[in-house]
């Protein structure tokens, strides 16, 4: 007993510190979300100081709920996080399995594969949107222009020319546009985070039991069946880790969205919070609480899904 209470006592500072660290911001956000609190207001100067007198109840939540941008932001958050998760896990698995076998230059290939992860998000976004996705100067623009030129050449061909004249000219896609900016963000974040998935899956693949695979070969299992029945269950936990960590990170995407389109057509919850926070702290806090709720829903949903499909 003595020992245990001493241990508790010694732990207390750390625990208290952690609690303060977590609870104070959450408490303040909750408090702000229930009051009227703006940074500047000429008409109602009393709202510029946070105080219980400005109590608004669920008013901020209602205001955000009815805001046009809110549902689009939730939709965008889910779309981006979901797509990035699926893409990074699938690509990560494929690449990890491919480079797990021995081949000359494996060390260098591995280092190169990991390197996108060390690029800063903002730099990543600038590189992608200007050098790769730009419809005129980027790789995309050059590729589309090149193909158009080739088709143009084919049209002058004696016999088959008529057939190629039926082909339309290809149009480069503008990834800063309202309809496409989310896809640009998905692409660049996938490129950056696939190495993370590869890294985690690769370490796990190396601990896979080779004799189990040989037993499966003797049992007549083909490569796909071995992957499905042995490798995938073996990777269940790393996949869950990759999904959880990425879900946490990508719910708060900001830099890429800002750089690609300044939120045009592609606001997510953090971006919306940012916009509100330029003046309306109450609404921003309410959105923050919504984001916490969304994160929890997604986390529970993911945990269930990952647990069900992979652990049985």
């Amino acid at each position, binding site marked *: 007993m003595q020992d245990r209470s001493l241990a508790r006592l010694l732990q207390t500072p750390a625990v208290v510190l952690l609690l303060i660290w977590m609870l104070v911001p959450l408490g303040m956000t909750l408090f702000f979300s229930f009051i009227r609190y703006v940074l500047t207001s000429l008409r109602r100067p009393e709202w510029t100081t946070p105080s219980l007198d400005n109590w608004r109840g669920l008013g901020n939540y209602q205001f955000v709920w009815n805001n046009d941008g809110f549902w689009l932001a939730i939709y965008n958050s889910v779309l981006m996080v979901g797509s990035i998760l699926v893409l990074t896990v699938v690509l990560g698995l494929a690449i990890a399995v491919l480079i797990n076998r021995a081949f000359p230059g494996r060390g260098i290939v591995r280092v190169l594969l990991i390197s996108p992860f060390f690029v800063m998000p903002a730099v990543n976004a600038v590189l992608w949107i200007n050098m790769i996705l730009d419809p005129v100067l980027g790789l995309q623009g050059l590729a589309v222009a090149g193909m158009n030129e080739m088709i143009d050449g084919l049209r002058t061909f004696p016999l088959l020319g008529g057939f190629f004249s039926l082909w339309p000219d290809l149009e480069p896609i503008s990834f800063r546009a309202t309809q496409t900016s989310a896809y640009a963000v998905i692409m660049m974040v996938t490129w950056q985070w696939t190495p993370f998935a590869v890294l985690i899956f690769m370490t796990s693949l190396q601990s896979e*039991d080779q*004799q*189990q695979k*040989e*037993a*499966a*070969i*003797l*049992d*007549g*299992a*083909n490569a796909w*069946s071995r992957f499905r*029945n*042995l490798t995938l*269950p*073996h990777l*269940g936990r790393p996949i869950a880790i990759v999904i959880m960590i990425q879900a946490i990170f990508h719910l708060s995407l900001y830099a890429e969205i800002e750089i690609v389109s300044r939120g045009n057509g592609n606001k997510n919850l953090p971006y919306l919070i940012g916009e509100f926070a330029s003046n309306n702290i109450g609404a921003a806090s309410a959105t923050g609480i919504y984001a916490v709720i969304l994160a929890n829903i997604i986390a529970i949903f993911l945990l269930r899904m990952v647990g069900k499909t992979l*652990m*049985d």
Partner: protein
Amino acid sequence: MASLTLRDVAKAYGSTRVIESIDLDITDGEFVVFVGPSGCGKSTLLRMIAGLEEISGGDVSIGDTVVNEVAPAKRGVAMVFQTYALYPHMTVYNNMAFGLKQAKMPKDQIDKRVREAADILDIGPLLDRTPRALSGGQRQRVAIGRAIVREPEVFLFDEPLSNLDAALRVQTRLEIARLHERLGSTMIYVTHDQVEAMTLADKIVVLRGGDIEQVGSPMELYERPQNTFVAQFIGSPKMNFFNHSDLAQTAPPELRQVDEDTIIGIRSEHLSLCSAGEETLSATYELVEQLGEHALVHCTTSGGTEFIAKLDVPPQSGRDVPLYLRVSPDQVHLFNRETGLRK
């Protein structure tokens, strides 16, 4: 059921030759044990038969067909691995059913086979557990069960008992012997434990450095080892080797005749105490290992050769008093010192 033939089989990893050139005939239903020291190529040979290792030269035939190019699953072999290699995310039932499912066998037939095998091995109550929730011995049985359900023509075992404790090892050894009796299939069993080899085998294949040293029944190997390596590898404690100069004046004339170029091999269990004047050897002893039913007495001859005698009653005299030991001449093995071959 099938016989198995190895013709001139060789294996090389790059330029390192691991298996030289092996010829071996295994008849239908035989229990063959590969023994040999670590690294001699036992596992490699077994894995070549299974199809897990490419064959660098020669032919492996099962029945009448050369299987060099046949896929492992199509060879009609099943293997029990040293680490069991059970599928960790499947239940015991699914572990056993996996191979049959891959072969697209109907569900009811799979069920019948799995339950039969579970009956034979006494693992019926464990079918719904995962391997993690089994003891070592139970895992071992499941691994054997996974081999049985496929009704293979040849069973391959790679040191299946080495992860079990001593008591369980003896018990499982008996069960494997019983299983062989019951199924009558051809079995090939790899071990470096010569007791397992002696007790289980119809035929023992002694390997060293990728070559066969001798093939024969356990008693043939014990009674007529073809060379010094087999002589010392089979039998425990290992066979004692003496020189001409170790023999006493009173040794039987057949033994006195042998020349300096001959190694005289005598198993410790064939040495017995005798009175002065009848002895083949005289020696002093340093140490007695009392095993209850008999004692292992560590001795040195006057010529300085160390050896072990297995005696029913340990010597009562002091350490510096000479021990007189005799052996009957037909239990002596003579080997050429140069070649190591039996004379």
